[in-house]
């Protein structure tokens, strides 16, 4: 898995506003293919955001988060020039992470 994470982090008035898009099928496990065979569940379970050595935000997803998950949050304690690391892991143990420059 590479380059699945697209993010923006903007510092404004002491807060960093973060918007993330993660490319992932988020298969529910409830769907069937053309031949009626169930399609295996495949979804992001955990997302973590780290800045300056602190976990600033983490989320757990169920299969009901939409395909290519969107996630937005905000936090204080970082500024322009700092780096926000985003990492996810899915139910198959696949992971990806990316550094987002705070602007």
């Amino acid at each position: 898995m590479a380059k699945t994470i697209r993010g923006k982090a903007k510092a404004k008035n002491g807060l960093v506003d973060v918007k993330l898009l993660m490319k992932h099928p988020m298969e529910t496990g409830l769907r069937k293919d053309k031949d009626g065979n169930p399609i295996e569940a495949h979804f992001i379970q955990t997302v973590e955001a780290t800045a300056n050595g602190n976990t600033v935000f983490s989320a757990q997803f169920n299969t009901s988060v939409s395909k290519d998950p969107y996630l937005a949050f905000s936090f204080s304690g970082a500024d322009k020039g700092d780096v926000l690391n985003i990492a996810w892991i899915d139910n198959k143990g696949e992971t990806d992470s990316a550094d987002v420059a705070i602007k």
Partner: protein
Amino acid sequence: MDRRSLIRALGGAIVAAAALPKLAWAAWSSNAMKAGESTAAMNELFGTADVVASAEVKLKAPEIAENGAVVPLEVSTDMPAEQIAIFVDKNPSPLVMTATMGAGATGLVKTRVRMGESSNVVAVVKSGGKLYSASQEVKVTIGGCGG
């Protein structure tokens, strides 16, 4: 082991550790995620389903969602939030996501969720160890769980 090979071994270990993307992941709340009903999911997630409706919790959701596969939701609060969770009562597994506010995080989560049919959506904020909620009915024109 002589000094040189010790240094080499240590160097290798450090490189291996640096190459790992992440050392530890918090456990996924499997029981809460798989619960078939909102109250059961809350009990699994929070250890209680004792939730007080509060105007301090703001839930932004569309009244009508044409596409149940992508329903935008926003939960926010000015209370010091420790955790925010979203439940869609009529989904097969109501708990959609739960977020934990870390160092400096404000009480805000925006995401997009799937809804199988029209349902009540409940946002729960944990603040000071207590649970507060807001809810809204969302009408879904086309269900989003596939078939």
